[in-house]
């Protein structure tokens, strides 16, 4: 299966990203609950990009664990202003917008691997992986 890159600029792109991620999760053989988890993560993190950075992209690529399990890796990238305080943003209930403040910490709980790099110069890059 090939990786897919989806440009994120509008609310509509979030719907597209969610659909693509779900379709890839189905094709890789994820269970329904995991399809929902991955689609939800895609929704949360794609919305963060559209809402805070304005534009960016998500790359969805099949992954393989060292133990042979297959999985799906999602890389969310933007060149926005970065997250000033990652530690705070990763805490439940913290939000600079008017959201619930569960997007980032919630996404971390929905994935097996979660990595976030952010700086004012290079923007933000969130990588999540979920294994089957």
């Amino acid at each position, binding site marked *: 299966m090939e990786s897919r890159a989806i440009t994120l600029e509008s609310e509509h792109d979030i719907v597209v990203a969610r659909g693509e991620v779900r379709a890839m999760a189905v094709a890789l053989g994820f269970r329904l609950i995991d399809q929902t988890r991955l689609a939800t993560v895609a929704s949360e993190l794609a919305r963060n990009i559209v809402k805070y950075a304005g534009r960016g992209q998500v790359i969805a690529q099949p992954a393989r664990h060292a133990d042979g399990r297959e999985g799906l890796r999602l890389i969310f990238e933007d060149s926005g202003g970065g997250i000033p305080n990652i530690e705070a943003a990763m805490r439940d209930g913290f939000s600079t917008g008017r959201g619930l403040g569960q997007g980032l*910490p919630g996404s971390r709980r929905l994935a097996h691997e979660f990595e976030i790099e952010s700086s004012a110069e290079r923007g933000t890059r969130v990588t999540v992986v979920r294994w089957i």
Partner: protein
Amino acid sequence: MPSSTKTQISGRVVELLSARRDEILNIWIKERLESEDFRDELISKHELRQQSQQIVEMLARALQESDGSDFDHPSFDELRGFLNEISRQRAVKGYTPSENATYILSLRNVVLPILAEDFEGDTVTLVREMDHFTRLLDRMGLVMVENFIRSREEIIRQQRADMLELSTPVIKVWDKILTLPIIGTLDSRRAQMMTEALLQRIVDTGSTVAILDITGVRTMDTLVANHLIKTVTAARLMGARCILTGVSPSIAQTMVQLGIDLTEITTRAQMSDGIRLALEMIGRKVVSAAALSHLRANGATPPAQKTEQTKSES
């Protein structure tokens, strides 16, 4: 495919196109900008120049790499991909199919005079070369048209899906009970519309219970949850209580992991459970006809029969 039908562009033409590509580009752009169907509201001069330059470069390169071979040669993959991409963009921007095809086909008007100039005196070769080059352009034009139509179909399909998603019916199922089946994507704008429609119907019908059914929602993220909480709170201020139904097992688990707290909202697994609860909330109950006549026989209801029964008992 028999080799006779293949476009075999001679080495001389390949060299010619490559050597004079800057000139070709300039004449082509000039021609496009002066043509009637150039619409500057759809494409900037800069963008047109960039696209045209890439096409001319890719064409010259593909012809050199493939030794003047057919459009099916792998050397043309890059060009084909690029043509696909720009016709997709043009479909999105609202070009007509003929404007889209004319763009590529107009390259003929630029290249043929250059060929005529170079092959002056050798009419036989000139006609053959023109024929081959025209065939190649036709193939490029077809790629543009095909992908343009495909993109348009994609847009139509997407719009149809969007329209479905945008409808927010509020249905009165019983006196004082409303239902709101939520299907598809609940973005901010739609959540706003949905809340407004619900509140208005609460006022219009004097309803005191609203059932929000999310059976048709496949992904519940924090934004959607936030919208639902706000809708429920607003309805409560209007004097109506909300019941959330249709939470699927996978959405329930996902919401717990996301950390969304909906304990404030009354929930039921199925829409039917929601309706039963809603009826209870307005002091009604659905019972089977048999149970009702049994109750009557035992003198429970209705009051008219009750008197009669009391009489016979005494």
